[in-house]
């Protein structure tokens, strides 16, 4: 795997982590909760090297 690809996986992991953290911290707005999870899906699939 190229060095730049490794960096992009690290960036993806960071963004995925931020989305999970925001989801955990959100207490009231249900639309935001759902939004964080939906946006998380492609990051999870990329990190799992599925899509």
């Amino acid at each position, binding site marked *: 795997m190229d060095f730049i690809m490794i960096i992009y996986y690290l960036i993806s992991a960071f963004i995925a982590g931020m989305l999970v953290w925001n989801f955990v911290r959100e207490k009231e707005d*249900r639309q935001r909760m759902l939004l964080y999870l939906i946006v998380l899906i492609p990051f999870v699939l990329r990190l799992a090297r599925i899509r």
Partner: protein
Amino acid sequence: MNGLRATGKRAMSRTAAVKTLFAVITGGIAAVSAVQFYQHRHYQLPIVAGPGVTRVAELSQYGAGLKGTMANTRIFFLEGKEPGGRALVMANTHANEIDGVLTALILIENAVVERGTLIVIPQFNNSASRSTRPGDGYPLFYGIPTAWGIKRFRFGDRGASPLDQWPDPDVYVHYPDRQLLSFLDARNTNRTWPGRPNGPLMERVTDAVMRMLKQEQVDIAIDVHGAETMFPVTNCIVAPEKSMRIATMASLTVTAMEGFENHVEPSPQGFRGLSHREIGDYSETLPFLLEAPFPFLDQPTGPKTADLLLNGKDPFLLSLARQHKLFVPYDESGWPVAKRVGQHCSMTLEIINQYSIKNAGRAIRLGNVPRYADVVRDGVGSYLHDPDKARATDVHYD
């Protein structure tokens, strides 16, 4: 005070319940899509080596940088008893143009070479054949009906999977001409010719084929594609100056003898990275690129279904045809796969035939390959063999 605490606890448990519900739903969606994408990427297409196949190699033999990657792919050699010229047929350069791989399989599973050598790469951009375009609603698989059942194929994408080459640059700078191309073209193996051994993965693919062309002294290279009916470069052979005479003769011959049109388009000199330009400029090989009309790729169609892929029938395209907006004839019968693959079979045979007439010392003679009328009459599936009935050593998974 106790009442307030109880209300707060109830609200928190309600939030936790909603969060859990959302997490389960989105987790379920992610799991279902993950399974489908995984099955698509790892599905192995069985290819039955026919009576003409003498050896099977891998592209990494010509480019070490491909070993162990999803870009590595199989190469089928069909060598005749008599020495002669060498022809290469490449399919799935764009893995969403299915007629190429179907033509390649017909050649591998049926052709018998009497003189010279036929080399076939059925999944030239192997990584792209394991990718998809969910945003466009692409089907993951399609099936070709045969006498022994449905043969299942992966339906790929135009460019390599980002799992294999990532990230895309802002602008793709072509090597060696430094022409600025679209960022998407970094993963498009019809923009990365002639490539380099230490470049991005797709440049390593084209570089390996360039090395093969030189090492195996290949005389002609045919790159099989499909193109939109609304795109002027469709239903044609694209050829550079050095291949023009043979392309013109092949085009005239099929029009006169087989009754389908396939005009000649000159390969533009200023547009870099294309097989029909760079193979000609950087090797002795004569390149040709075949385009058959492929309605699935047109933008103004209905849903991108497997039916549209195989039949090429679409009411919106029919309406546009009546307004003379298409570059090919189009009616209620659409552009079925048998017609498109039949054209590619005949054009491939005719290019080889015309080359052999002009270069008797390097002639290539092959038999048992159906022509346009045969494929239209019998269907593509009639020429695909049952892997369950073939000898295990003859079945190659790609």
